[in-house]
């Protein structure tokens, strides 16, 4: 059974007599141990979808099932879900990390003792023990975010929703959050992650779903999507220019190379070894397959759709 099953979710809002389509027929699945990056421009419907999954916004149509239970009808579904919501503090700033963990632990159905024990383990694991008695207000943004993630984990939910977990964090804190996301997924929990930092999504996710104007425009395994958008061309980078002789030989193979250039682009992959034979023994700095990154893919997907509509 999938941890999360979202089927045909729809949400419209009324604004000054107009109906605005926020989410239109969104379906998603998430399995245990999987990280799904949910990407889209601002206002595309990411947060609305996440809040519908968490039972905080009622959909017009469609179903949400968290471990088989509908959080809109059965509140016990919320025991299998933890969330760090964007634009929220998520924590009581006047309480310390350990007090927040204990309070939210009880709120999620634990005894105070169990919440304290688990809270302490999480604080140790998140390297926050030295700050356990400092009020959250006085912690750095990165530490606050770590405490918020710890609070989302206190009741050991199977599904974690992370809405922009690295927003506003410095490099070091971002690295820590990335490490935690990997660890949490390795424990067998499913993570639905939204982020504008596409390099992070590329690094962390097993699967990507791109949403635009309320509709999913692509949903694939991250590696598969990158493969699909990558060409099969090779790029060869040399330490020095090729010289006239080699330029002529390469021209015989149909490759037009600038004499001063130290980089070759090879679209016909069958020629690779023939080209390498010509280049021998010139020192090669790098040889790599042309690989798209998630940022290019995202922009292409989003712009493609926009121009299609225009």
């Amino acid at each position, binding site marked *: 059974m999938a941890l999360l099953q979202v089927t045909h979710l729809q949400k419209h809002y009324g604004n000054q007599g107009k109906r605005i389509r926020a989410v239109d027929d969104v379906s998603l699945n998430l399995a245990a141990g999987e990280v799904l990056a949910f990407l889209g421009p601002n206002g595309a419907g990411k947060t609305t979808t996440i809040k519908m999954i*968490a*039972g905080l*916004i009622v959909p017009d149509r469609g179903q949400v099932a968290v471990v088989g239970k509908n959080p809109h009808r059965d*509140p016990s579904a919320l025991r299998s879900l933890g969330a760090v919501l964007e634009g929220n503090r998520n924590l009581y700033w*006047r309480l310390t990390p350990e007090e927040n963990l204990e309070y*939210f632990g009880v709120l*999620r*159905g634990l005894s105070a003792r169990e919440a304290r024990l688990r809270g302490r383990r999480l604080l140790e694991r998140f390297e926050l023990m030295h700050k356990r008695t400092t009020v959250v207000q006085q912690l750095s943004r990165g530490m606050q975010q770590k405490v918020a993630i710890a609070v989302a984990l206190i009741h050991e939910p199977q599904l974690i929703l992370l809405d922009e977990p690295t927003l506003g964090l410095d490099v070091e804190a971002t690295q820590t959050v990335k490490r935690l996301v990997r660890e949490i997924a390795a424990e067998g929990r499913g993570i639905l992650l939204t982020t504008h930092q596409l390099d992070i999504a590329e690094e962390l996710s097993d699967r990507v779903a791109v949403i635009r104007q309320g509709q999913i425009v692509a949903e694939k395994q991250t590696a598969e999507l990158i493969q699909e958008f990558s060409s099969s061309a090779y790029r060869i980078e040399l330490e020095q220019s090729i010289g006239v002789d080699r330029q002529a030989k390469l021209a015989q193979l149909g490759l037009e190379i600038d004499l001063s250039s130290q980089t070759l682009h090879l679209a016909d992959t069958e020629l690779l070894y023939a080209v390498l034979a010509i280049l021998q023994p010139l020192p090669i700095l790098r040889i790599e397959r042309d690989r798209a990154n998630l940022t290019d893919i995202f922009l292409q997907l989003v712009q493609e759709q926009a121009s299609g509509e225009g």
Partner: protein
Amino acid sequence: MAKGKGMKAKRSTQVLDIFRLFLAEFKRAWIQFKRYPAESIGGVFIITSVFYGLFLSAQYIAGPIQFGDKLDSVIVGYLLWSLSIFVITDIAGTLQSEAQTGTLEQLFLTSFGARTLFLVRAIADLAIQLILLGVILSIIMVLTGRYLSFPIALILPLGTVLMGAYGLGFVMGGISLLFKRIQQVLAIFQFALLFLLTAPTEEWSGIGHIVGYFLPMSPGAGLLRNLMARDAGLNGGALAIALLNGAVYLTIGLLLFGWAERETKRRGKLGGY
């Protein structure tokens, strides 16, 4: 049989969970109370000044509700007034401040359900308020040498008034969820509260007397007047009506709050302020 036992075990687990929630809410409120003394001392100072004034017979600061001239009655009148206002504004105030500080949506992620959570929280807040009032009153009694005696029976009608107050508190909470800023409504509501707690509906005759049974908190306030000002005993029938009145308003409040919660989630406006 086994099913019945299972249900019973489930119910006792739920009661235990709710008691744990109460303790957690109490602890949370208490920590915040003592951690920010500037705010707490302000509240303690106001309460102390009012009670000290009352003990010095300056009855005019007792507020509009008085159950006779005796100090005991004046104090009970003031307690009823201040506790009712506290209860009625507490839930709406919590919702607004949590929306502002960005913790409201996390609260709605509880599997207890929002109504249970906010009722338990409001009871925990009231418990802290009562402890505070009790301590201040005790200190003032020792300092002034004037001692109060409350008939223990007044707890029951006070309970019915507070049930009605919680019902109205949930109505205000629901309005606050839907419309966010409701300070003006709360201010106007204090006038309605004044009428409800002071109108001597138990003395009205004919239709007015019957209408009095249906007004929120009014039957319980009438019983308190009988107990404190008229030295009358507690009438079982009247207490049952007051209890029913409190239970009905609490139920109405919880139902309206549930509807407002659903409607706010439908509009997608839960976290906004």
